[in-house]
């Protein structure tokens, strides 16, 4: 665009790029405290100058094309040729960050360095001679604190000035043999390219960068010619070309920093290191992780503070349900609509359909917000990044990489970004396996299911919510171990290098933004997908064929000429329930369709049409499971009269009663099996779509869905069948089958890992 200035924001992962980007553009991009949050570039206009477009590039360590992030960043810098680069450098990790800087200054694009986290450097008593560093690197340096917003405007201004007038000339030169080879390469291959870009290309050719060679379309003759120069330098320096360049850069940086960077307490442990000594300790790491996650779920979804627990989330949810369920949604809407003289079916559609469905889902928003707040706090202070590190140690024992755990951390908000975050995994087999297992993590949409089961059947027990999280983690670990032992996924784990950010006090702006983004997305979905689904579900549960007559089942059941004793006996036989338990909804379209399918769930303890319908409609959106219950149990016809329940609690009481009824008194166990199945089975259609895009294969997508469903079924089956040994009413056949399946799982887990000896990672 004419007159626009384009500035690229480049830097190492976790150096604060996205925070700086948000500060400068006023954007709300998600800031993650682990690498890979920014996989693709994002653009925004500067708040202070709308003619300046800032591009947030993914975090990279170098301009070598080893990872997707590096390819994206490098392609942008080379092909789009921005007017300036704002290189954000983490001052607390100066040496490693400058490795990228030495490459950026070779691109021929004006570079301005934003020296971030200088407040931490000063706090530690260290000193950086910024003036001298600027002179040595040949580019302007501005001290900033992206988190606090100090110096960010000055950095942007410096980048604008550099874009308009500046020019960065690399001050660094390599040793004689390398410079000799570079001069030859420049002369032979890149002399017709822009002068300022020639050196970068020559260095990349020296490193035998295949992508650059492809891009330049070098002839075989030219390649052979420069190969002689490279080989000569390699022989003289007794190392391979790429290592020579890497070593020389680090030697240069080391020498430069000698007089510039003065560390006060060299060798001393920082506070962050001291915390890590405990938090990432070989023996303590996992128990601490378990305690932390227990507290997170106890505070958000455990026993309410009103009932002697510690959960603020449940207390707020109960409060919201009382208001939403009683005052506004049910009694309020019904009274208003009836007062207006609206037709009964319309009152039913709005009150018992849309409002009951959406209200059931929205009732859980407070719990979700508290949960997201806790998770965002853990992310922002730097703890969550440690989890990936801790999990890498465990995963590696089973041939897995900790890199696979990052998408799972992302997936706690929503499975879709979790699935997409798997793109950072280079090993295709590990990537596919991660895609298949990421959605085992309980995402935000599954929270209402957990809240419903915990609240309705377990008296708000904290352990249910906590167990849901750890069931997700266990499913991922167990699946990983088992799948790695199959030929499809065998192979050595990819190396996992991750920088652990220093612990710091959470930035409330980031935390609240992250919490709100996730919570608001959930609310928006309730107002769109769930509204439409609720209308459909209300229609399917309200209409049906009763004794050959189509219409609203409630109305048809009032006609004794249609609903005869013989007919009731037929329905009772079809639904496998006593005659006095037959209700109009048993003849609804949904009941008719779901009843035959419920056979699949009979061995899991919830083979009734209602949980079956809820489970299947959960494919539209996982919140739909709870919305479905909200609609199906919105009536109380125990007295033979249609009367809307007074509040949400009573609806959930009816859910509990029903679970007890169709599981012969083992309602809790059946509900737990139901929760397990819904947590682990195929995700919603949107997430399945993401799986299909990432797998880029119909066959693999179907395999992933089938695996998830079978895994979920087996897990729920084992829990229900073995659980009945303790709860009573065991089925011998079921128990034998459960033990056989458990044995198979154990065999898969403990059988020797042979394939890795034969197959190598590509």
């Amino acid at each position, binding site marked *: 665009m004419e007159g626009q200035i384009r500035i690229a924001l480049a830097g190492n992962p976790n150096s604060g790029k996205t925070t700086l980007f948000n500060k400068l553009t006023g954007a*709300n991009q998600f800031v993650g405290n682990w690498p890979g949050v920014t996989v*693709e570039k994002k653009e925004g206009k500067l708040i202070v100058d709308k003619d300046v477009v800032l591009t947030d590039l993914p975090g990279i360590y170098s301009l070598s094309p080893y990872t997707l992030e590096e390819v994206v960043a490098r392609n942008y810098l080379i092909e789009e040729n921005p007017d300036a680069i704002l290189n954000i450098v983490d001052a607390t990790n100066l040496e490693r960050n400058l490795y990228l800087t030495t490459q950026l200054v070779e691109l021929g694009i004006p570079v301005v360095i934003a020296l971030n986290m200088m407040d931490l450097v000063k706090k530690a008593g260290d000193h950086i001679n910024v003036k001298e560093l600027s002179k040595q690197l040949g580019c302007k340096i501005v001290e900033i604190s992206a988190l606090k917003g100090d110096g960010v405007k000055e950095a942007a201004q410096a980048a604008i000035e550099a874009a308009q007038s500046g020019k960065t000339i690399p001050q660094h030169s390599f040793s004689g043999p390398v410079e000799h080879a570079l001069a030859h390469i420049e002369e032979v291959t890149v002399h017709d390219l822009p002068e300022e870009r020639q050196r970068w290309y020559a260095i990349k050719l020296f490193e035998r960068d295949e992508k650059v060679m492809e891009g330049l379309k070098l002839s075989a003759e030219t390649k052979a010619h420069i190969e002689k120069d490279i080989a000569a330098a390699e022989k003289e320096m007794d190392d391979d070309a790429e290592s020579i360049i890497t070593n020389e850069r680090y030697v240069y940086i080391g020498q430069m920093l000698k007089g510039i960077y003065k560390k006060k307490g060299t060798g001393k442990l920082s506070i962050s290191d001291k915390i890590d000594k405990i938090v990432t300790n070989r023996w303590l790491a996992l128990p601490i992780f378990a305690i932390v996650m227990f507290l997170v779920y106890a505070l958000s979804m455990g026993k309410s503070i009103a009932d002697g627990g510690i959960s603020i989330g449940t207390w707020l949810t109960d409060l919201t349900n009382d208001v939403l369920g009683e005052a506004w949604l049910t009694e309020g809407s019904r009274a208003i609509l009836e007062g207006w003289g*609206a037709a009964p079916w319309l009152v039913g559609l709005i009150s018992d359909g849309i409002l009951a469905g959406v209200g059931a889902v929205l009732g859980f928003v407070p719990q979700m917000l508290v949960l997201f707040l806790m998770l965002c706090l853990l992310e922002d202070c730097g703890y969550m990044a440690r989890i990936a590190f801790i999990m890498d140690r465990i995963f590696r024992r089973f041939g897995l990489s900790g890199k696979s755990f990052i998408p799972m951390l992302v997936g706690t908000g929503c499975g*879709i970004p979790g699935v997409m975050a798997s793109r950072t995994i280079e090993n295709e087999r590990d990537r596919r396996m991660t895609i298949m297992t990421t959605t085992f993590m309980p995402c*935000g949409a599954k929270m209402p299911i957990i809240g419903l089961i915990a609240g309705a059947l377990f008296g708000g027990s904290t352990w249910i919510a906590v167990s849901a999280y750890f069931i997700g983690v266990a499913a991922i670990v167990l699946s990983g171990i088992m799948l790695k032992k199959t030929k499809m996924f065998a192979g050595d784990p990819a190396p996992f290098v991750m920088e652990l950010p220093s612990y710091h006090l959470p930035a409330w702006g980031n935390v609240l933004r*992250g919490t709100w983004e996730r919570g608001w997305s959930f609310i928006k979905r309730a107002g769109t997908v769930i509204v*439409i689904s609720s209308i459909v579900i209300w229609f399917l549960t309200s209409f049906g064929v009763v004794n050959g007559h189509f219409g609203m089942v409630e109305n048809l059941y009032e006609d004794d000429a249609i609903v005869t004793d013989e007919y009731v006996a037929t329905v009772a036989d079809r639904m496998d329930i006593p005659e006095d338990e037959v209700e109009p909804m048993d003849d609804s379209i949904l009941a008719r369709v779901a009843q035959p399918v419920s056979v699949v769930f009979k061995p899991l303890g919830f083979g009734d049409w209602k949980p079956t319908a809820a489970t299947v409609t959960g494919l539209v959106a996982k919140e739909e499971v709870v919305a479905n219950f909200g609609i199906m149990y919105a009536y109380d016809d125990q007295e033979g009269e249609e009367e809307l329940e007074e509040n949400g609690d009573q609806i959930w009481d009816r859910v509990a009663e029903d679970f007890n009824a169709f599981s012969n008194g083992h309602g809790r166990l059946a509900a737990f099996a139901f929760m397990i199945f819904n947590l682990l089975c195929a995700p*919603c259609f949107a*997430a399945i779509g993401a799986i299909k895009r990432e797998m880029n294969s119909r066959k693999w997508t179907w395999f992933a869905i089938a695996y998830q469903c079978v895994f979920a079924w087996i897990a729920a089956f084992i829990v229900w069948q073995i659980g009945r040994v303790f709860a009573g009413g065991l089925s011998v056949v079921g128990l034998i089958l459960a033990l056989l399946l458990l044995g198979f799982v154990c065999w898969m887990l403990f059988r020797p890992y042979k394939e890795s000896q034969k197959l190598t990672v590509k």
Partner: protein
Amino acid sequence: MLAWLSENWANILMIVLLVLIVALIVFRMVRSRKAGKRPCGCDCAVCGACCACKKPAAKKEP
């Protein structure tokens, strides 16, 4: 006619409102889909791979 309208105004109003709401939701969902946004529980803006989701992943190993 007027008598019928005065008797059924609540039904007509509710039906019109419902149809409008549903149409608006469907319109927004279709527009979001065309714009490359996903009907997921997350806003794609919060996703680190938001741009990547619009195009299929490159096929790598068979």
